[in-house]
């Protein structure tokens, strides 16, 4: 099962490699990892998506928590949270196909960033599944390149 962890870590060199190294060294399955500085320049937020059964996931959380540079770790798998991923997709688009692709892009609220002689670059944001779906729909035209950001997440605010 897919799990999402959000962490606040020290903004030091090598922190990302400590985390990635923990996954590779212990044979855990890491699907994506994103990092970006927070409003405090000394703190980075890392969102990672991993796979594992309950026992493995419990170990992953404990091992991450044990890293000295990890300040806070939140499991967002079950908690109410917003998850977003961004993808840039370059699709083969002859002039005759463009209109059709624009329509599809519209449905997915994808933005067209660049139009070339025989290709388009689009930006699409959303949950990972939405990006999968969009990629599947434009696949028949021919995806020339795709770059996905990996998931970023934040917890929703308290409602009560």
């Amino acid at each position: 099962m897919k799990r999402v962890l959000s962490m606040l870590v020290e903004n030091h060199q090598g922190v990302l490699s400590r985390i990635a190294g923990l996954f590779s060294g212990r044979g855990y399955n890491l699907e994506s990892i994103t990092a970006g500085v927070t409003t405090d320049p000394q703190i980075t937020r890392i969102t990672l998506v991993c796979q594992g059964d309950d026992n493995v996931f419990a170990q992953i959380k404990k091992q991450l928590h044990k890293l000295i540079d990890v300040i806070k770790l939140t499991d967002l798998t079950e908690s109410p949270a917003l998850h977003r991923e961004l993808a840039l997709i370059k699709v083969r688009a002859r002039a005759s196909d463009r209109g059709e692709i624009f329509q599809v892009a519209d449905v997915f609220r994808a933005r067209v960033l660049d139009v070339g002689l025989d290709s388009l670059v689009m930006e699409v944001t959303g949950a990972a599944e939405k990006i999968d779906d969009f990629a599947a729909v434009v696949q028949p035209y021919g995806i020339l390149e795709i770059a996905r950001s990996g998931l970023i997440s934040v917890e929703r605010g308290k409602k009560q």
Partner: protein
Amino acid sequence: MKISGSELLVKALVEEKVQHLFGFPGGVVIPIFDALYARPEIKVILTRHEQGAVHAADGYARSTGRTGVCLVTSGPGATNTVTGLATANFDSVPIVCFTGQVARHMIGNDAFQEADIVGITRPITKHNYLVMERQDLGRIIKEAFTLASSGRPGPVLVDLPVDVVRELGDAEYPASVSIRGYNPVTKGHAGQIRKAAHALKKAERPLFYAGGGIHIAGAAEVFRRVVARTGVPVVSSLMGIGSLPGDHPLDLGMLGMHGTYQSNLAVTHSDLLFAVGTRFDDRATGDLSKFAPGAAIVHIDIDPVSISRNVPVGIPIVGDARTVLEQLEPLLAPCAIQPWLERIAGWRSEHPLAVSPAGRRLLTPDTIIRAICDLYPEAIVATEVGQNQMWTALFYRFRHSRSLLTSGGLGTMGYGFPAAIGAQLGNPGRKVIDIAGDGSIQMNIQELATAVHHGLPVIVAILNNGYLGMVRQWQQLFYRGRYSSTCLMTGTECPPSCPGPGDACPVYTPDFVKLAEAYGALGYRVAQEEDIRPVLREAGQSRKKPVLIDFIVEREFNVFPMVAPGAGIMEMMFGEEGGR
């Protein structure tokens, strides 16, 4: 007043009360060694290999409870510490290791003697640092000492670029630091402790499972009181040996692959396994599906990672072993478990540890180790890894905490001798003995020079069987006796398939007695039973020189009991033919 980074480092060492620094110089650490020159507060122990320096710091730390400190140069100096750091990391030993690094502007350029040691040691240290700003140096050194010795202790590496070490900066060494991502829990949860006490009260077949955490936490005293109060018997992991005196009636000995019969059976039949400071390592548990099948499990450990990793735990208690046991102690009462104790006594008499009969043609390891134990019952004993280690664990009865120095987790051959050197420096009044194999002693034999130069009367008892004995034992038992690359006598004249040891075997290399003499140490060879004790006694008389004793033992003597790899711990062999 501004001082150089080296001077700040030396100041920090003095404030941390570091008396011994184990090290080896090289290009980029010359400024640091220069700052250490003629400083009587810190004795620099020049080893002959950086691996020896880390193991010595490790033996010093394990035997004294204080942090061991090393200093080596960049590149090969730093990479030579890797095995020592991994050894200490596995067994939770507090070490601060300073490595030199090329100047900051050279980093990443493949400069001479450059290695990314922070990257290399990331998974084998508790934490590590590359100091990129002179202004951070004091804080980082303080953090390193704080991390190494607190929580679950471990090695911390600090990589020091040579220009940082040369740079002038402030002279401040902080008295304390707080690290926001690091808050080890030491006090146990009161509710969990009550549950654990209640479980002990209810249990009919309770058993303590003592781990190395008891020594590390300084918990042996309270643990002994808890055992005395409850009357519950104790099995130990390899690292837990000495938690209870080895001759205590409730001490069942080690559990696991080479555990005692009564220990492995007691674990298998217990209804409450009360583990303190242990990892449920695979060498202790054997096949997990057959491990303590009927037992509820209580587990005290300072590292949450160790809890419920291999074995699901019903009552986990995160905390320092000593603090938690002190919280637990007042809640305990004597356990009424006479039938259980009688059952255990039955197992004990059914398969006691084998004693080699007197008058055998060749020496046997059990006879030698029992003699060492009789003559030096209060010793600090280091071991190498392999048969020598298991025989020591089985036959030497440890009376004191922090007295067995052995590489349990990583299983590092070559650990014992340098560790004994460190232990002797930290415990000048105690007898320190390294029980070694003829294979593993050769992995750090160069440290004889260190021991001689520092006048350390460490006794090295080599159990010389001419084999890498433990691997040979596995080959004998599980690989149809094909002794591939395990005979240390193998020469060009040997046939491709060995018919077994005999008079035609090549002469053994090296001659350990001559080797000892070449180094200026004392060397003895013992091949007769009646010489064992006199030579051991004479060795104990040495005050300033290390003593190496080459005990020529039966070549194919094995460690029993043994549980085959992958089997349950109750499925024990007592001899070459299998057994139960």
